[in-house]
């Protein structure tokens, strides 16, 4: 009874942020057009106020007003058909023909407003959503544990064990897992440090912690990528969906209820974890490489163009972005990196739960690599039969060779 009460209380506490009304900006199609007749078509106070309120504004009246192209017209001076304000607007919207001594596109960007959008998002929504994703998953699992309890092994242990994962498989798993934990912790420090750690621990300590976190994060990233490649190569064959997954899913994998659906080496739940780790791990790795080598591995504008060709941009509600500067592409790389990392944190938290306190005997599979036959029969019966059949086959082949030849 107390367990159920605690579960209910946990769920209530977790739903509390959802009860708080969120102020929404009134913006969009119903916003009235601005009358700029008083300024002769130039910017008005209302334009500035709308921008400061964070509303979506159409500033093409400024961005397109960058002078004519009568550069060669006689008697117009060095600016040709453009005036000083028009030149500054061209610089403001990255439309000026700029030549810089560095010779690269990065140096040509003198002004960009993408940075402010990104900073506002990073310090606002990303932190709030990220926090609740991690805390919500942990709280949800706690509630589930209180309701469901530990998934026990039915009946007695047999005392006979079977090798579930070889040493190289466990090594790859732990290389990936431990490096993800380190990267997750250091990444969270970097994201939340200035706002939440500095006021508590002091700016000096926070600065040192974040500098250390950055070095650790940048270098441990390689271990994560190696672990990801190892895990993918070793297990991809076992994670191709098959018919037994449907049965497993229909019975909720025995996680809800008391059924023990048959499964091969990996059940449908584990396959979902595997593909999530591969996909989100790949997103984290590719965007991470972009962040590791700033401005030397910039690719998101091309990805966005490709997504737009496939109609995916509209599908996920993203605006079409073909004119992204290299700086904005770096900001986007950080955004995708962080979002994928938070999603993977949620999934990995659930994985850690079910592989430790959530299920009796599960940790042995990755701890020693040996699992009791009773556990294997309960959770991976098809795989156990395959292993036994293979062992019997080996034994059957071995016997004749062991026998002394008649000659």
């Amino acid at each position, binding site marked *: 009874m107390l367990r159920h009460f605690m579960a209910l209380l946990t769920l209530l506490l977790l739903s509390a942020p959802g009860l708080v009304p969120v102020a929404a900006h009134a913006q969009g199609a119903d916003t009235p057009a601005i009358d700029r007749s008083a300024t002769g078509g130039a910017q008005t106070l209302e334009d500035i106020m709308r921008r400061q309120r964070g509303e979506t504004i159409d500033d093409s009246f400024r961005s397109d007003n960058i002078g004519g192209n009568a550069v060669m017209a006689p008697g117009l001076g060095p600016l040709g058909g453009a005036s000083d304000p028009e030149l500054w607007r061209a610089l403001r919207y990255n439309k000026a023909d700029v030549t810089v001594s560095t010779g690269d596109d990065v140096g040509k960007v003198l002004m960009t407003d993408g940075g402010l959008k990104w900073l506002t998002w990073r310090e606002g929504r990303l932190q709030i959503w990220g926090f609740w994703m991690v805390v919500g998953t942990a709280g949800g699992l706690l509630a589930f544990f209180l309701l469901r309890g530990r998934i026990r092994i039915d009946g007695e242990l047999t005392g006979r064990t079977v090798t579930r994962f070889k040493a190289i498989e466990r090594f790859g798993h*732990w290389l990936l897992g431990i490096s993800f934990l380190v990267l997750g912790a250091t990444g969270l420090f970097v994201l939340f440090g200035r706002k939440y750690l500095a006021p508590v621990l002091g700016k000096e300590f926070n600065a040192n912690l974040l500098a250390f976190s950055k070095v650790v994060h940048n270098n441990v990233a390689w271990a994560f990528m190696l672990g990801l490649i190892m895990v993918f190569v070793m297990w991809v064959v076992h994670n191709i969906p098959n018919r037994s997954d449907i049965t497993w899913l229909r019975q909720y994998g025995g996680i809800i209820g008391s059924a023990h659906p048959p499964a091969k080496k990996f059940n449908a739940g584990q396959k979902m974890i595997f593909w999530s780790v591969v996909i989100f791990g790949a997103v984290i790795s590719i965007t991470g490489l972009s962040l590791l080598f700033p401005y030397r591995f910039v690719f998101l504008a091309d990805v966005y163009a490709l997504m737009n060709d496939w109609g995916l941009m509209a599908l996920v509600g993203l605006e079409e972005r073909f004119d992204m500067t290299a700086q904005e592409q770096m900001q986007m790389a950080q955004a995708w990196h962080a979002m994928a990392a938070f999603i993977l944190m949620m999934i990995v938290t659930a994985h850690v739960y079910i592989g430790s306190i959530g299920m009796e005997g599960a940790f042995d599979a990755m701890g020693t690599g040996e699992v009791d036959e009773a556990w294997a029969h309960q959770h991976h019966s098809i795989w156990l039969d395959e292993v036994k059949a293979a062992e019997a086959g080996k034994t059957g082949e071995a016997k004749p060779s062991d026998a002394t030849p008649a000659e």
Partner: protein
Amino acid sequence: MKTIFAGFAAMIVIALGAGYALDRAGFSTAEQSAGENVRLD
């Protein structure tokens, strides 16, 4: 449990190795963001 420690040790070795190798190869932020005329040492 040995593989857990092996994974942990490998992570440290890879991280130290990557840091050293990239620094030697001139991929440090200081070197990447500075021109030839800037003395870093």
